[in-house]
């Protein structure tokens, strides 16, 4: 990873878990677009029959911070019948990288 390039970024991971169906990516990215959040990368997979999608997003230019976004995403998740969570990217680096 190029550190200089990322130094102004405030990265977080949006995790979507639930039953696979059409339109999930569209609905989540629509929300992120309205919040002026840039999507850096997307990865998805079916794990033990559950749809799991992670989006790496940059909150640097976002309208609101993670504390405000988290409940909004949770609500969006309830609306579309999926669990949608957001956590800071540094948590994952701390936990899973020595």
């Amino acid at each position: 990873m190029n550190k200089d390039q990322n130094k102004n970024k405030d990265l977080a991971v949006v995790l979507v878990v639930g039953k696979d169906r059409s339109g999930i990516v569209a609905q989540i990215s629509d929300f992120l677009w309205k919040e002026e959040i840039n999507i850096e990368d997307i990865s998805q997979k079916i794990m033990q029959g559950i749809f799991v999608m992670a989006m790496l997003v940059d909150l640097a230019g976002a309208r609101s911070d993670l504390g405000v976004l988290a409940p909004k995403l949770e609500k969006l998740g309830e609306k579309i019948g999926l669990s949608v969570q957001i956590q800071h990217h540094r948590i994952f680096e701390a936990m899973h990288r020595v």
Partner: protein
Amino acid sequence: MPLNVSLEEIYETYRMTEKEHFDIRAVTLGINLLPCTSDNFSQLLNRVEKKIVTTARQFVKRAEKIDARFGIPIINKRLTITPAALVLSGALTGAAAEDRKRVVAFAKLLDHCAQEVGVDFLGGFGALSEKGMSYADQTLIDAIPEALGSTEKICGFINLASSKAGINMRGVAKIGGIIRDLALNSENAIGAAKFVVFANAVSDNPFMAGGFHGVQEADNVLNIGISGPGVVRRTVEAAPRDLPLNEIAEIIKKTAFKITRAGELVGQELARNLGVRFGSLDLSLAPTTAVGDSVGRILEAMGLERVGTHGSTAALALLTDAIKKGGLMASSHIGGLSGAFVPVSEDVGLSEAVKTGTLTIDKLEAMTTVCSVGLDMIPVPGDTKTTTISAIIADELAIGMMNNKTTAVRLIPVPGKKAGEMVSWGGLLGEAYIVPLHQENSDYFIWRKGQIPAPVTSFRN
């Protein structure tokens, strides 16, 4: 930039926080009150109030901000202070009745400060008396039932033994009565849940009720307590039934590593934000009443039909050690108690095992030789003799003294209740069945008082 952690890893973190109750159990700001000492009592009160309120004013707000930023819940925000007997000693007059009033007034002031800054608890209302009690120590301890009974957020402690000094049996004899009075002085005996007796107490413990800010610490220090019995239980449950125990230890170690790293990140960030020193990180599996968040259940997941049966001590030894190893690898700030707690009323698995009679006071005592604290949150019959309470404490302190480890006792004699009856405190303190004790008395042993000499292993000079 591309995602540099795998989906499996992200999903694991999500599951830990969302489903398995991984959290930062406590962020505890230690405040040195020694600069506030004065021989003028009202001046002392003014200085202490000013010091606590100015130091901790932003504490709760900033902790909430960090919680929101990282998405890992911070459950409790607490303060610890220099042991209160040291802070008060210069402002006592020598007239016992007047000094007792001053001790209670001091507790009330601290309670007021804790309310003012919005913390859950304030710990450190106690004394370090393993070798003897000063006048201030005695006055403070005598006033404990009234001081803790008439305040909401104050937690007290007394250190009555160490591997270096032995056990202060005069203090132990006295404290049995104090605990009984404390129980009588509060609704449902709950006051006794706010007071801990220690051997080898540590100065940087972020957990309550035994936390205090030791005199060897810097002025303002942030200590972090992280927990996650639910996370460990699930990883053990998910392992195959025939997986050898060394590999179970390996799984627990890795899990402990991960949760410690997340805790350290949050702790460092909060300390930087507050402009205070990051003290220590205490990874202790501290059960809560939430289903599955139980140390008893972890031991059962290893293959015991019910916790308390034969094999429980070995299983707990494996667990405590694996947690310590994972934590030590993850952070060079590991301190406090670090290990597994076995608080009976707060842990669904332990509480059930007491009800069925599998977990007895003797087995609990044996288990505390390998856990990180001691006899914790144990409700005992209300008519228990004070000498019996003292004798239970003496046993537990002896384990700490002989094994160079911290041990503690938090017994709750519940008035009017008999062995086997249920007591419910609600909330975090949970509910439990009264643990039966031996009926034979220990009177003459306790009445001898004096000092149990330090063990031979302490003479290393």
